[in-house]
C-alpha cells in the first residue's frame, strides 16, 4: 500500500498541502481496518474526529423511523466524512457504516487543534479546502431535498405536468 503522505494527495482537503505538510499530517492520522457492515459511528454519538476513506465504501444514513434510515450519500477512497466533528461538539448528525471492507484514516479533534497551534499555515490551508467541501455538501443536500420533494409529489400522483381544461359552458 502506498505511503499515507502520498495517498493524501488524493484527499480533497489536502490539495493545497506540500509534501512536508502532508507528512506532518500523516503522522497525526490513525489507520483503522473495518469489516463490511460495521458501524463507524451512529447518529447522536459523540463527535470528535474526521475520517478519510483510504479504501472501501462508506454509507452515510439518517434515521427515519423504526429500523429504516434514508441513505444520504456514499464515500469512496479519497473522500472524507465526519468533518463537522473537527469544529463542533454537537452529536453526529448521521450514521456511518461500511458497505465493504474498508480502511479509514482518523484525524482527532485534538490532533487538528495541535496543527492549529503548531502549524497555523497548514491549518489555514486545510480549513480553506474544508470550506469548499462544506459548500459542495450543502449543494448536494439542497439537491437531495429537491429530489425528496419531487419523490413525494410523484408518489402521490401530483406531479403530472399537463393541466386539463375544466368543463364549462358560457352561453353567449
Amino acid at each position, binding site marked *: 500500500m502506498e505511503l499515507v503522505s502520498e495517498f493524501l494527495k488524493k484527499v480533497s482537503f489536502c490539495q493545497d498541502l506540500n509534501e512536508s505538510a502532508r507528512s506532518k499530517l500523516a503522522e497525526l492520522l490513525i489507520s483503522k481496518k473495518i469489516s463490511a*457492515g*460495521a*458501524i463507524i459511528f451512529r447518529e447522536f454519538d459523540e463527535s470528535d474526529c474526521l475520517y478519510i476513506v483510504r479504501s472501501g465504501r462508506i*454509507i452515510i*444514513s439518517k434515521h*427515519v423511523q423504526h*429500523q*429504516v*434510515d*434514508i*441513505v444520504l450519500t456514499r464515500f469512496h477512497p479519497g473522500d472524507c466524512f465526519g468533518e463537522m466533528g473537527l469544529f463542533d461538539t454537537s452529536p453526529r448528525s448521521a450514521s456511518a*457504516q461500511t*458497505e465493504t471492507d474498508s480502511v479509514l484514516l482518523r484525524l482527532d479533534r485534538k490532533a487538528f487543534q495541535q496543527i492549529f497551534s503548531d502549524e497555523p499555515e497548514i491549518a489555514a490551508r486545510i480549513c480553506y479546502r474544508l470550506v469548499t467541501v462544506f459548500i459542495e455538501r450543502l449543494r448536494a443536500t439542497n439537491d437531495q431535498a429537491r*429530489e*425528496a420533494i*419531487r*419523490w*413525494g*409529489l*410523484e*408518489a*402521490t*400522483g*401530483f406531479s*403530472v*405536468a*399537463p*393541466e*386539463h*381544461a*375544466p*368543463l*364549462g*359552458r*358560457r*352561453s*353567449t
Partner: protein
Amino acid sequence: MKYFMADPAKLELLNRSTDAGGFEVIRIDSLRAYSAYKPSRLPQSDWEVTAQPKSADGTRQFVLRNLRQDSYVLLNSREYYLWNYLDGRHSLEEIGRAFHLAFGAFDYLLIRQLLTKLYGCGLLESKRLLDFQLNRGTLPDRRQGSGLRRNLLRWRAMSLRVPNADRVCSLIYERGGFLLFHPFTFWLCLAAALCALVLALPFGQNASSFAYFLKTRPWLFSGVMVASLVSASILHVLVHALACKAHGRRVRELGFFLLQGIVPTFYADVTDIFMSSRRARITVDMAGPMVEVVLGSVAILAAQAASAGLAQALLLGIGLALWESALLNLYPFNFLEMDGYNILADLTAMPMLRQQALALIPRLYEQGLNFKRLARAEWLQLAYLALCLISVFIYVILHIDGLRALIRL
C-alpha cells in the same frame, strides 16, 4: 401534447436488520411508491355525478361536480370506472389490476391524467397539495415570457361580472321570469315569429326605398342598430340564465368578456346545466336566440304597422338584424362556442367537441395521418372541423367586398 418527463425520483432506504450489524439498502423510485398510493376522493356529500347521453361511438361520459368549490370535470367511461375505485381503500396497483380485467389493458398515464384532473378540481382528499397547486397560480410564471405576451394573456382573461349572479337570477325568475318558460309563452312567440316572417316577405319589393331612407341618416341608423343589438345581447344572456334557473340549476356567472380574446360578448355561465338532462341543456341553449327571434319579430310587426318612412325602415332594419343575429348564433360551424355549437355538442353528447377536434389534428399528424385508426367520434370531430373551415371560407368569399373596404379604412 408532448411534454418532457424526467426519470422517476429515487430514494434510497437503509433497512437495518434486527440482529446486530446487518443492513440492506433498498432503492425505491417514485413510480413504485406511486403504485402503492391509495387516492381518496371527497365524501359523497361533497360531489355529484351525472351520466351524459351516449355519444356517437356508443360511449358515455360523466360530469362530476365538486359541491365544495363549484367546479366541474368531464370523465369518460374509463375514467368514471377508475373514479369509483378512488375510495382510499384501493392502491393504484389494485385499481390498475381491476381496470386491466375490465378493459383488457391499463396504462398508468391514464390514471395520472385522471388524478391531475381530480386534483385540479379539488375532488381528491389532499388539501395541502391542492392548496399548493392553487397557490402556484399566484406565483410569477417565467414561462409567460415577455410583457407583450403577459398583457395579451391579461387581455384575454378580462371580464366583468355581476356579483351574486345566481341570487340576482333567482330573484328575477321568481318575480315574473318564470312566465317566459310557460308553454303559452312559447306558442305566442312562435305565432309572432311566423306572422312576422309572412309579413316581412312583401317588404323585399321595397328594399331600395328602405335603403334610401337609411342612407339619409347613416349615423342614426348605426346608433339605433348598435343599441338594439347590445340590448338584445344582454336580454339574450339573461334569458339563458333564467332558463338555467327554470331547470333548478345554478348560474355561476353573468357578465361580459372577450370571446376568443377578440369579440366583446355578454355571457352567462350555465355550466351547472350539465347536471341536468340533455333536453334541459338544449332548452337553455335555445332560450337565448329566441330573444332575438321574438324581438326581431316585434320590430317587423311594428314596421308593418308604421307608415312608410324612416321609422319603418329603421324598425325593419332592426328586425332583420336581430333575426340574422339569431341565425348566426344558432349556426354551429364557426369555430366559436355559441348557442348552435352548444346544441350540436349536446346532440352528439360531446361536450368538449371543439377542443377535442382541435386537439385531433396534431395527434393525426403524429400518427402519420393514419385515418384508418380513427374512431367514429373522431370522424365526427373531423367533420366538425371541415364544416367550420368551409363555413368560414364561404363567409369570407361572401363578404370579400366588405373586408376590402375595411382594409382600405
